[in-house]
């Protein structure tokens, strides 16, 4: 297990480095002076000189990358061009809205999708299995940003059940919750069907294994076999899938935040792109990708912990 942990963390570290290098070189690949890009074309020569000195822009590129790495590691991602506030502080304010959205969206999808998949696998061909199958295909086919737009149209504009924009009054929990419902519904919907399908397929495969047959030959209750024996193995590919699919979930969350005007990290990056506020874009992209890499790492570790066969394979 120790060797596995070592290798897996090493891999994650290398990927993070590659992402950092990519982000750094993106800002340096574009023609023109990064100081002018960061400060805008109307910046005074003094401001440009001051910015270049502060950001080490007049030094060799390799050295600049080392500085960039050093400050990123210390949590210093530069300053907002307009308010001069540290980027890290701004991201910290926005992060909560995005995390709440992503966790709720994924949460309801897992709570509904996994049991649906199990029930469908236990009784293949039943009406529940067929309904789940049609539901899965139907929801997977709708891109999540379209679900967001249509949910906004149906539930808040036509039916007026839920609020359309914002994240609710700060401090008012019920209001914040009501603002969370629609975006979380929109990003989770496709996952319900996807998870149900995945769990159903791997459950069917596991239920045919000899050890399940012996368990039922020993007279164990079907519920015990499904939950205690089959699901434990069948859930493994699903965990990998959730980890891998997190990138897609982050993308959907970005769309949902923009459509519902929810002040999360995704909306922040989007607004910063229109304002050409590069430090915010860079910091936001770094945090979003870092978060994704962390989730994939955690899902891999969880699988290694649940399934001893995996540990030896990397």
């Amino acid at each position, binding site marked *: 297990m120790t060797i596995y942990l070592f290798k897996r963390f090493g*891999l994650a570290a*290398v*990927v993070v480095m*590659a*992402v950092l290098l*990519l*982000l750094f070189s*993106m*800002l340096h*690949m*574009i023609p023109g002076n990064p100081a002018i890009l960061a400060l805008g074309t109307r910046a005074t020569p003094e401001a440009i000189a001051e910015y270049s000195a502060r950001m080490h822009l007049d030094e060799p590129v390799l050295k600049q990358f080392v500085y960039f790495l050093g400050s990123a590691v210390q949590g210093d991602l530069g300053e907002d061009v307009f308010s001069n506030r540290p980027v890290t502080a701004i991201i910290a304010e926005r992060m909560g809205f995005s995390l709440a959205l992503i966790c709720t969206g994924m949460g309801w999808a897992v709570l509904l999708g996994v049991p649906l998949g199990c029930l469908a696998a236990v009784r293949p061909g039943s009406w529940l299995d067929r309904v789940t199958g049609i539901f899965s*295909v139907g929801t*997977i*086919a*709708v*891109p999540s*940003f*379209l679900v967001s*737009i*249509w949910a*906004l*149209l149906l539930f808040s*504009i*036509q039916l007026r059940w839920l609020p359309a924009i914002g994240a609710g009054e700060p401090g008012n929990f019920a209001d914040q919750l009501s603002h969370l419902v629609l975006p979380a519904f929109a990003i989770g919907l496709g996952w319900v069907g996807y998870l149900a*399908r*995945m769990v*159903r*397929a*791997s459950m069917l*495969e596991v239920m045919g294994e000899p050890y399940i047959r012996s368990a039922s030959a020993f007279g164990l209750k079907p519920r015990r076999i499904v939950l205690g024996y089959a699901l434990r193995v069948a859930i493994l590919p699903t965990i990998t899938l959730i980890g891998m699919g997190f*990138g*897609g979930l*982050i*993308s959907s969350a*970005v*769309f949902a935040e*923009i*459509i519902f005007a929810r002040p999360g990290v*995704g909306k922040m*990056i*989007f607004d*910063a*792109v229109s304002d*050409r506020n*590069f430090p915010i*874009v*860079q910091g*936001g*992209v770094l945090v*979003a*990708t870092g978060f*994704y*890499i962390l989730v*994939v790492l955690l899902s891999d570790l969880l699988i290694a912990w649940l399934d001893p066969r995996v540990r030896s394979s990397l």
Partner: protein
Amino acid sequence: MPEARESAGRERREKLKRFLTDWQAVTGLLLVVLFFASAIFAPWIAPYDPNAMDIPARMSGPTWAHIAGTDQLGRDTFSRILHGGRVALYIAAIGVSASLAIGLVLGMIAGYGPRWLDNLLLLAFDAVRSFPAVILALATVALTGPSLTVVLAIVILTTIPSYGRVARTATLALRHTEFILAERSLGASTNRILFQHVMPNVIGPLLILAAMEVPVVVSIEAGLSFLGIGVLPPQASWGTILNEGYLVIRDAPWMVIAGGIPLILTTLGFTFLGEALRDIFDPRMGRGR
């Protein structure tokens, strides 16, 4: 030999029969044909010019004259949807074939080349995949400004890893088979082995994957254009129609409804077709992904 040929022919007929009796496969095929036909023949089918403005008829709901209503400038939504399909087809055709070709070559190199190269390429695939597509697009557009070329580049870059991984796994499995070893012992060059012998055996699953990737590519284009960082107005694309509709969603809801339907039909069509092809040609991969 004739017997073998006959049995191969029978097998082919058997597969065709399985395909034609599967309702998902047939529905998928029909939707895919609809997608191609409506995009290619859009200028002849569309009742109006997609950019022709008719201010007196602006923001009209669905009527017999405008079956999907009109927008703020009085342009016919249905005609714009048909022309938007051309953008989707363009992105899908170029994006999917380019990333398939690059992914195929990189995957074969990773699977056949030395260990360090394999590890390096796998790392590159992982690094590219660790950017959620929208985030990568936003970061790029921040530097370059929005354009169709950026969308195409993002689409190609983010979908290469899936082809690369499949091609790599298939190549690894072939690497030590007898016919490849025989070629090598006869002194065939690496080029010849990869392109003459490995490629024909690897391309099948990749083509099926390509069918499944079309909806992904089309959704990325629509999503980015919806955000205003892809296809730029006044050009019609399913994404820009949704974008323009979103701005007037309270007064003209038909635009976001009509703009979304072709997106769903295209996704359904290619997903059904891809799954049916996979079940018939590669049963080991199973129905649930």
